[in-house]
């Protein structure tokens, strides 16, 4: 990967050597925030916090930088992140310091309408907030946790943009960026994507084929009905690499499939903008990779029978336990520059569990903002939302550096 990027950079730099008008810029944000979690004492999946070993308190200091250099035909961007994290776990306090490139890219305009790019890129799209079924890589799109930083995929891509309305991308995903697990599901993946934008609508189709997994197919679309209302949908069809089967009959054991049958996931949503610019969002998600009500109940019953099974249940759980979810959002005007807030409510229609979340940010000065985020789960230990913790609160400040 680094050789491809270096080659691109050398070619690009040589090609644009005659151009002296390189623009360079950087900006950055310094974060300091503390998180406290109230774990469930009676957790089925994580009894006495012995399996997941979740930190009850985490203090984080972080610098997130954005570096850019560009000429007429070449653009280089990088987003390095330096983190110092102190966690108080069951065994005591631990500190972890790390530095990594969350995203970076060298992009060269190879011909009219044709760009070649190499780097680490977040390949995420569509209008959905709760989950992104049309992305093979980022089903959990990170929108529910404003502090979360998605790490990009190591990618080489060719994009043809014949006009403002259309674009076509062919990409080779080499690996899952920085956090590649032992089995990198997306190592050596071919990705094809086509997008069309028109008067009040945008649609995209995507196909991905990983070396280790069956093909993924996705589609996303949005349409503005009027000035206030937008409807959107995302869909994905995939086979999961590892699927923990939970028969509804509790007497039967868990079984693990190395590849699940092909299943579809669909999200439909609507957003309505209020006169002052606040917006209301409603989304419904159907994920056929999840369990039915009876299967989920059996999942928790089996997990409760032994710590080993609890570990298996937690470690191999589907990306969402249930099949049907309702997600509601009420948020402030996104065009306001002096603050932002959002309230989120999620209900699992499969197990009846509820989760309420909120995020607020206010400007203290030109450079300094304070923020807080909180998540409250109400329900029992055998409901997904409340299976691990009942409350999580984060407060912090951020300082613009440049």
């Amino acid at each position, binding site marked *: 990967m680094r050789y491809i990027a270096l080659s691109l950079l050398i070619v690009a730099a040589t090609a644009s050597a005659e151009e002296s008008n390189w623009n360079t810029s950087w*900006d950055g*944000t310094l974060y300091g925030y503390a998180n406290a979690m109230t774990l469930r004492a009676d957790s089925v999946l994580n009894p006495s916090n012995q399996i997941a070993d979740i930190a009850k308190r985490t203090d984080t200091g972080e610098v*997130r930088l*954005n570096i850019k250099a560009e000429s007429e035909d070449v653009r280089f961007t990088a*987003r390095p992140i330096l983190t110092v994290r102190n966690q108080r776990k069951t065994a005591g306090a631990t500190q972890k310091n790390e530095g990594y490139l*969350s995203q970076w890219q060298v*992009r060269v*305009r190879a011909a009219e*309408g044709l*760009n070649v790019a190499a*780097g680490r890129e*977040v390949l*995420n*799209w*569509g*209008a959905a907030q709760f989950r*992104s079924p049309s992305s093979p890589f*980022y089903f959990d*799109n990170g*929108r529910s946790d404003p502090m*979360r*930083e998605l790490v990009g995929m190591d990618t080489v891509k060719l*994009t043809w*943009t*014949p*006009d*403002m*309305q259309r*674009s076509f*991308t062919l990409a080779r995903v080499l690996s899952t960026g920085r956090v590649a697990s032992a089995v990198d599901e997306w190592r050596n993946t071919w990705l094809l*994507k086509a*997008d069309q*934008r028109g*008067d*009040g*609508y*945008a649609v995209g189709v995507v196909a991905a084929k990983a070396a280790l997994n069956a093909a993924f197919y996705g589609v996303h679309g*949005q349409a*503005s009905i009027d*000035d*206030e209302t*937008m409807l959107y949908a995302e869909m994905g069809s995939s086979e999961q690499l590892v699927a923990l089967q939970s028969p509804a009959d509790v007497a039967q054991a868990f079984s693990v499939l190395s590849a699940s049958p092909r299943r579809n996931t669909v999200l439909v949503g609507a*957003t309505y*903008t209020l*006169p*002052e*610019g606040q*917006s209301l969002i409603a989304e419904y998600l159907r994920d056929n990779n999840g369990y039915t009500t009876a299967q989920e109940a059996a999942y928790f019953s089996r997990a409760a029978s032994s710590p080993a099974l609890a570990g298996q249940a937690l470690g191999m759980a589907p990306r969402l336990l249930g099949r049907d979810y309702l997600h509601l959002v009420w948020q402030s*005007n*996104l*065009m306001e*520059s002096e603050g932002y807030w959002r309230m989120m409510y999620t209900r699992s229609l499969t197990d009846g569990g509820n989760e309420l979340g909120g995020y607020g940010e206010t*400007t203290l000065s*030109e*450079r300094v*903002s304070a923020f807080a985020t909180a998540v409250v789960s109400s329900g029992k230990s055998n409901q997904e939302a409340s299976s691990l913790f009942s409350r999580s609160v984060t407060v912090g400040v*951020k300082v*613009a*550096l*440049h």
Partner: protein
Amino acid sequence: MHTSLKTSLLGLLLLSGVAYAAPDAHSILTSSDQARGGGLPGIVWEIKLNSRDGDKVDETQRLLVKAVDESSVAEVLEPVRSKGSKILQVERNMWLTKPGLSKPIPISPRQRMSGQASNGDIAATNYAGDYEAQMSGNESVDGEPCYVLDLKAKHKRATYDKIRYWVSVKRLVGVKAEFMSVSGKLLKTARFEYDSSIEHDGKRIPFVSKMSIRDALIDAESVMEFGSVRVKRVAASEFDLGQMQ
């Protein structure tokens, strides 16, 4: 037959004379658009935006805008805490994105209208393409004779439903505008200054340097100053959501 030909020729001459004296509304609009970035192969400019809402003075915002026809991308340069945020508009679609954001967020047309300066004000002006124009008469603005045009939106992607537009007879640039709702209710008034100029098609033409917008409903106003104006072709990929990194 001979008499009829002479009459026709005389009629044509008279008509051309009338046309010379008062160009049609569409060509006036096309000319005035160029002085605000419209009808050009592409434009890149910096906008400094100062707003006041009652006694509350907002922070100065600085934006780098790239625009071609009705597509635009505006990158925030100031305030520093919002640096790198981008607002992309393609046709009637708008998205907000910023460094580290997990995915771009769609913005509704109603949100794009919020604030004193809407996205339509910071992008290039394409009134000739977006509005049906009718000549309404002649008036003077600050002593300068102007054509008065009544504009009505042709499609939903137009920022305003109706506009009354005063275009200088001599300079063919818009000097004053009233922005209205469908019902004709006055929303905002704007005044324009043209202290800059650009080179286009071998000609030097005046170019907007300042736009002052006053809200008609509340005591609020915005002043946009346009600087570092460059007429240049902007690649379509600059407006591709998948290549905004």
